[in-house]
């Protein structure tokens, strides 16, 4: 673990070297970024969130003093292995399509006795506060590593969520007319030097979706898929995406389904 940290720290040093590399020309700058990304793969602090999440998952908590071990993530009560690769999905008990974070909130309410507001409080951690949700998500998703994405649209509400998600993806609005598709609708595009996945094609959707959640080196936090969507809409100049809202679940369904067939490979590590 210590060695992982050291390697991550070296990765951060590489960022500061990019300025120097840029002076050599853009080809070299892009090469240096590729090297930096490769160096990051060496050690991933997401392991810390996974371990903490597993501990919290099995700990008795909340007004009902219960653990989340009997939470049904879609494969039956208590099954964590492989569950994330099939989410989002329709849950009959809630009569709703749910992504992982929505389902964890559900289990915190039904099993542990939290209010919904308390369960959704502060899902994204910051410098002075670690978020339990990010740890739960790290643990649950790590249990799907290597398992093929297999999101179903069999239930009419799953089909509906997918189609609503597709609408959201192409929805232009705000001061800048941006939609998700503005940046993620074509192959081989960049913002500044940042490569953008084409989320309308299988290959791009698979590569992007299977590498979230991720430890973000620039933020020192493990970020969930709800966070990813929230921050995209901020940059689109939209109002704030409500945590576990219907639009967030619909969009996640659209993107997850497009990634079907690829082996899940997260928590990952990103710049």
């Amino acid at each position, binding site marked *: 673990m210590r060695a992982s940290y050291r390697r991550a720290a070296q990765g951060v040093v590489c960022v500061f070297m990019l300025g120097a590399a*840029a002076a050599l*020309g*853009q080809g070299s*700058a892009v090469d240096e970024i590729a090297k930096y990304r490769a160096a990051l793969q060496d050690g991933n602090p997401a392991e810390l969130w996974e371990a903490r999440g597993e501990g919290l998952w099995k700990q008795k908590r909340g007004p009902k003093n219960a653990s989340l071990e009997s939470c049904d993530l879609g494969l039956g009560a208590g099954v964590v292995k492989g569950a994330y690769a099939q989410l989002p999905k329709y849950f009959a008990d809630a009569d709703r399509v749910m992504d992982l974070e929505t389902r964890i909130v559900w289990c915190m309410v039904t099993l542990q006795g939290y209010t919904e507001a308390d369960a959704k409080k502060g899902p994204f951690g910051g410098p002075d506060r670690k978020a339990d949700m990010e740890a739960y998500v790290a643990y649950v998703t790590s249990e799907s590593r290597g398992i093929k994405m297999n999101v179903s649209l069999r239930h*009419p509400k799953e*089909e*509906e969520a997918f*189609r*609503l998600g*597709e*609408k*959201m993806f*192409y*929805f*232009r*609005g*705000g*001061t*800048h*007319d*941006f*939609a998700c*598709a*503005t*940046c993620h*609708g*074509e192959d*081989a*595009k*960049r*913002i*500044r*030097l*940042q490569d*953008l996945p084409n989320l*309308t094609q299988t290959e791009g959707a698979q590569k992007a979706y299977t590498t979230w959640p991720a430890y973000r080196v620039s933020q020192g936090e493990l970020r969930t898929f709800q966070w990813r969507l929230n921050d995209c*809409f*901020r*940059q689109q*100049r*939209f*109002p*704030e*995406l*409500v945590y576990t*809202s*219907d*639009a*967030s679940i*619909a969009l996640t369904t659209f993107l997850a389904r497009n990634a079907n067939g690829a082996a899940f490979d997260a928590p990952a590590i990103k710049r």
Partner: protein
Amino acid sequence: MQSRLLPLVLAAVIAAPAILIACATAPNDAEVNAKATSMLKASFKEQGQAKLDRLDQDDTQKVCSEYAGRAPPKDVAERIEKANLATIKWPADGKLLGDWTNGETIAQEGRGMQYSDDPKGPVGANCYACHQLAPQELSYGTIGPSLYQFGKLRGYTDEIRKYTYGKIYNADAYSACTNMPRFGHKGILTEQQVRDVVALLMDPASPVNK
């Protein structure tokens, strides 16, 4: 053989209504559209300067969303371009060229209008996010075409200056459903800022044209 098939056929006939019922519960287009509208406002909350009215689409946003990344048909495109062309407010003094050094600052500035931005802070155009401009800047995006030598290649004419001002002011006037924001029309940039960016592209002294 035939007698063996009969039960299967019968089973299919009996099952058919059940399949129809299952299909009937799948949402049709009109239902999805209605649901999308109600879902949208319930799924966002105002934050900082980004209020919920940012989700109210104007005609251009609405029509372009419907084509879902595909180019609209010619007649629709022409209608959108005409409507957007009519929004362009040309400078009263006829001066289209500002200061390219300010234009470079505006082209580099990525802040502005996100709910995390200071409403009193700078608002840029962030041109480099999507375009190559001055060759000194290596960190440029590729969503839009390269604009290196923009004026030099097209000629420093009144016609091109006017087109450039109009394109920055309202890009949909020239290319319906473009990815480029309508910087003047949507109040992202001031008239003077638009002029300064025009200068970055059209002043022979600008590094873009070196």
